[in-house]
């Protein structure tokens, strides 16, 4: 277009190339933010139909969770994706979907609906330093805009801010030119939560019948957002399923019900190269949610809400000169106070003493008005910020997931045998407080031969893309996992049955782009991440060493018990003595010699917890859970009944007869039964005797 105009103007006046300033000026005008993003939708995570579907769900879920938590409500969310072209040809890659997210949050007052859903860069979260999922106020309105662009359909919002009043049902279409929403329909309705959704699929209807889906009692207030869009639904890496699964891990206090569309889209092989067989199985093995009639239910793991976060003022160390000038200007306009009070009011960690000292240092009095500060003095002040020693920003603005909650989430979502979590103390980057948490799950059903699965969260929101650009990925790759008994290719994440979770909580998470896919690589952040990982790694290393030791001990017992049968048999054949008493006597000795194996296990009782117990008990200062039942090689092996030998009842025979008996009397394996050992050691093992398996123990003969 631009070029075309250039050429016509060039044709008008051959001597002059290009346009004159006036002509150019005529073309120069405001670019609406929404227009800009409509053209650059990849920046917001709408690059392709599959990701668009995910981003839509993600933005709506983020908003809902934020709203619930701010309203002090334990979140319950329903995510429904309806396939609007169920009869399309099998080869059609994308389809039209209606995505509906219903929450039980506080609802939205009528007059704010257009602003929240219809404008980009409008929100409560951008201007304050408070930890929340959303930041810029782009997400949900961008999703609505994408829907409008691809299907022409407005988004539908049903919200009931008051349990006793009617709900509002509003249809909004975004005008990209004006960055304003146009209200297409606006009515009051009794229909919240929307009745229609309760029977959207057979599974939904069945669940609703059991009062387990969108039950009105659970949703006295709340908001429902429906967006129709062109998208593609496909499971695997980077899917809605994975997103919800990970969200459930990081938000054990929330309950999610997901009604997926009836069918997956046709696959496009080279679209998602990450989805290998193994990755898919890793994803599926991590879901311990219940699935009824095709509806996924991610139950609530803990009953308390995350700590309520405080809004904080910026910290002087994290401010830039331009921002400082801007803040001064704002302060002049609103407060007209002194610099002395400006410093105390608009920053955190500046006490009256410090403020006075700063004023003195830059050569003004405590009475000097903020409006009298000129840029040169402001710059002095800025330098003073750098030079002064200040306490780090307060950390009550952060709500980490918590060690116990992370373990509960991992336990719920990942089937492993060992879980460890650690929560760092809050730290600061660019004057903004942040806190890093890490958790790992090891062993169990996780695939052994692959690189560890990394799951990343920022303010409890899972990050699904651009893993290798993320600071957390670098932190994991830089951690020396070999020290903790794992394999690690140079400069990469470790290999083995491992899931690594990293969470960054901050009032402002530095993302590398607006689509919030990767955390920017600040040294302070990466350092904290590594320290958290190392803490988890040490716990894992200790566990693995202990496991190795126990395994060695149980191997030892195994060795003895294996050979005893052979020895008893040989002695029987040489001497003619009945082998059974010899075997039993030797077994008693063997068990006594390897009693250490049992003792070790008992001593570990502190960390050996059952799944049920772990979420109740709070002695998880260790941040470690070991699932005994999930350990394949350990206690079960240690206590495996060793070939329960049923010796052929041979009376004391002469040598010659004995050697014949060996050939002629094989014991049918059906006759095998476990020898009830009357050995004293039996006592110490009764606790686990249930895990003994004797079905497949072979015969000695």
């Amino acid at each position, binding site marked *: 277009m631009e070029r075309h105009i250039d050429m016509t103007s060039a044709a008008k006046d051959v001597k002059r190339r290009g346009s004159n300033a006036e002509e150019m000026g005529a073309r120069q005008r405001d670019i609406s933010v929404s227009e800009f993003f409509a053209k650059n939708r990849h920046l917001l995570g709408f690059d392709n139909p599959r990701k668009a579907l995910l981003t839509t769900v993600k933005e709506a879920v983020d908003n809902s969770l934020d709203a619930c938590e701010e309203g002090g409500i334990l979140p319950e969310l329903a995510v429904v994706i309806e396939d609007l072209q169920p009869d399309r040809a099998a080869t059609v890659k994308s389809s039209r979907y209606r995505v509906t997210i219903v929450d039980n949050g506080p609802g939205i007052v009528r007059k704010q609906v257009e602003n929240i859903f219809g404008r980009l860069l409008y929100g409560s979260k951008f201007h304050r330093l408070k930890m929340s999922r959303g930041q810029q106020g782009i997400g949900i309105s961008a999703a609505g805009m994408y829907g409008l662009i691809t299907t022409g359909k407005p988004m539908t919002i049903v919200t009931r801010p008051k349990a006793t009043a009617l709900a509002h049902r509003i249809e909004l279409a975004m005008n990209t030119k004006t960055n304003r929403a146009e209200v297409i329909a606006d009515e009051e309705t009794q229909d919240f939560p929307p009745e229609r959704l309760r029977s959207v699929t057979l599974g939904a209807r069945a669940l609703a019948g059991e009062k387990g889906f969108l039950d009105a009692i659970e949703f006295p207030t709340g908001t429902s957002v429906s967006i129709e869009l062109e998208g593609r639904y496909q499971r695997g890496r980077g899917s809605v399923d994975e997103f919800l699964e990970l969200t459930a891990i990081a938000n054990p206090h929330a309950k999610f019900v997901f009604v997926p569309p009836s069918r997956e889209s046709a696959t496009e092989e080279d679209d998602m190269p990450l989805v290998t067989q193994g990755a898919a199985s890793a994803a599926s093995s991590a879901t311990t949610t219940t699935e009824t009639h095709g509806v996924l239910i991610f139950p609530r793991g803990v009953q308390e809400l995350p700590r309520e976060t405080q809004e904080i003022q910026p910290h002087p160390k994290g401010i830039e000169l331009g921002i400082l000038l801007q803040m001064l200007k704002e302060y002049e306009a609103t407060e007209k106070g002194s610099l002395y009070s400006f410093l105390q009011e608009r920053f955190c960690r500046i006490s009256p003493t410090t403020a006075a000292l700063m004023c003195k240092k830059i050569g003004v009095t405590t009475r000097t008005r903020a409006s009298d500060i000129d840029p040169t003095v402001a710059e002095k002040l800025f330098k003073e910020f750098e030079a002064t020693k200040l306490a780090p920003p307060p950390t009550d603005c952060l709500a980490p997931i918590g060690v116990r909650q992370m373990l509960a989430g991992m336990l719920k979502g990942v089937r492993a045998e060992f879980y460890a979590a650690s929560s760092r103390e809050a730290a600061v980057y660019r004057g903004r407080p942040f806190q890093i948490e890490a958790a790992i799950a090891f062993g169990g059903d996780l695939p052994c031969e692959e690189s560890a699965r990394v799951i990343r969260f920022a303010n409890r929101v899972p990050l699904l893309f651009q893993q290798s650009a993320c600071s957390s990925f670098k932190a994991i790759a830089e951690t020396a996992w070999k020290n903790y008994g794992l394999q690690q290719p140079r400069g990469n994440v470790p290999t083995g049955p491992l899931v690594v979770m990293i969470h960054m909580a901050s009032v402002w998470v530095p993302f590398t782009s607006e689509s919030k896919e990767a955390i920017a690589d600040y040294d302070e952040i990466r350092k904290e991440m590594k320290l958290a990982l190392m803490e988890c790694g040490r716990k894992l290393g200790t566990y693995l060493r202990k496991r190795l030791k126990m395994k060695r001990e149980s191997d030892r017992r195994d060795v003895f018990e294996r050979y005893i049968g052979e020895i008893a048999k*040989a*002695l029987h054949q040489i001497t003619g003595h009945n082998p059974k008493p010899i075997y039993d006597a030797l077994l008693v*000795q063997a068990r006594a010699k390897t009693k250490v194996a049992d003792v070790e296990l008992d001593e570990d009782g502190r960390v050996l917890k059952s799944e049920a117990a772990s979420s109740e008990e709070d002695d998880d200062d260790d941040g470690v859970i070991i699932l005994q039942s999930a350990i394949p090689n350990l206690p079960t092996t240690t206590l495996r009944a060793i070939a329960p030998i049923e010796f052929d009842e041979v009376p004391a025979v002469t040598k010659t007869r004995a050697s014949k008996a060996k050939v002629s009397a094989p014991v049918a394996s059906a006759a095998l039964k476990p020898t009830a050992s009357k050995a004293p050691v039996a006592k110490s093992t009764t606790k686990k005797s249930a895990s003994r398996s004797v079905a497949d123990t072979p015969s000695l003969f």
Partner: protein
Amino acid sequence: MAAKKTTTTPASDLSGRLKERDARTTKKIIDLAEEMVRRALSGQDPIIQIPTRAKSNTLWNAKRGILEMGKATAARPLFDLKTAKQFMQTMLHSNTISDLIAAGKTSSLRGVFYKAKHTVAGTRENTFDGQDESDPILEDLEVALGALREELHVFAENRGSMVGNITIVDRGDEINCRKMGSGGYALPSIVEPDIIQFKKSEAKFILHVEKGTVWNRFNEDRFWEKNNCILTHGAGQPPRGCRRLLQRMTQELKLPLICVLDCDPWGHYIYSVIKQGSISLAFESSRLAIPEAKFLGIRAKDFHQCKLDDAVKIDLTDNDIKRAGEIAAYPWFEKHKGWQREIDQLLKNGFKMEVESLITKDISYVTDTYVPERLKARDWID
């Protein structure tokens, strides 16, 4: 060859003695097993005491000029991860041996290995992973029971050959070692008097060479005929059968033993084993060692004395030098001036020589010139 029953020992007498010997061995095995049963039932650690077959438990009997086994024993407990498997293997072999004796059969080392080899019940582990695990267990049993290999009804492969002016009887078959063609009489592993008897011998001495190739040279040149001797080789380190036969011939026929071995630490070591016995078989030294054995060559001085070509030199390796030092420190060489000089010369030369190096002079130099001249000059080390 005409088979002829030996008349020196009545068959019934022999079988009677054998039965008696077998009964003795069987009793030893049963005693050992009973002891283990008793220990097991009374809650004691099952432990087999096995005389240590190691340098630390080998004593040099200067008076007899042989190595002897000391009194040290090593405990082999069942309940020790290091010895558990060996314990089981020892029990299995005890059983195998007792079966062999009961059946009146003998078996090769390899046969015994196969007989006791199976998977341990309930596992995929083999009782024996290879013959190299089985053979030492049998040697342990020999010393633990105080019974010789033949008493356990076990034999090794035939190794080594013999020709010469002697007639022997082997299990009743008369064997004329003058008519053995190019292959010679293969030396069996059991050569005790009840198996092999010496009948007629005109030989004046025994010439033992290191390996078959050299032995072939001597046999082809009819050295034993020209020099009236018995010619043997042991295919390198001579096995027990070969050493026992040599020892019996030196003792019973009063023949001197002359060795022609390579001029290197390995050759010296072979000589040392023939003469004094070995560490691992120290318990058998009195039956195997031949303190009168003489070392004729190849000598370190021969390179100059025989004016050999530079091509015959093989550089000593670091390992050879280390080994030479060890051999020089053996108590029976340590005070032997001749041997100290010999090893010094070898190290000074810095190279070793094989017997075949003499071929550079002439194909039959070693048989026509070298050995006869040295014999005549009585130029050897003893």
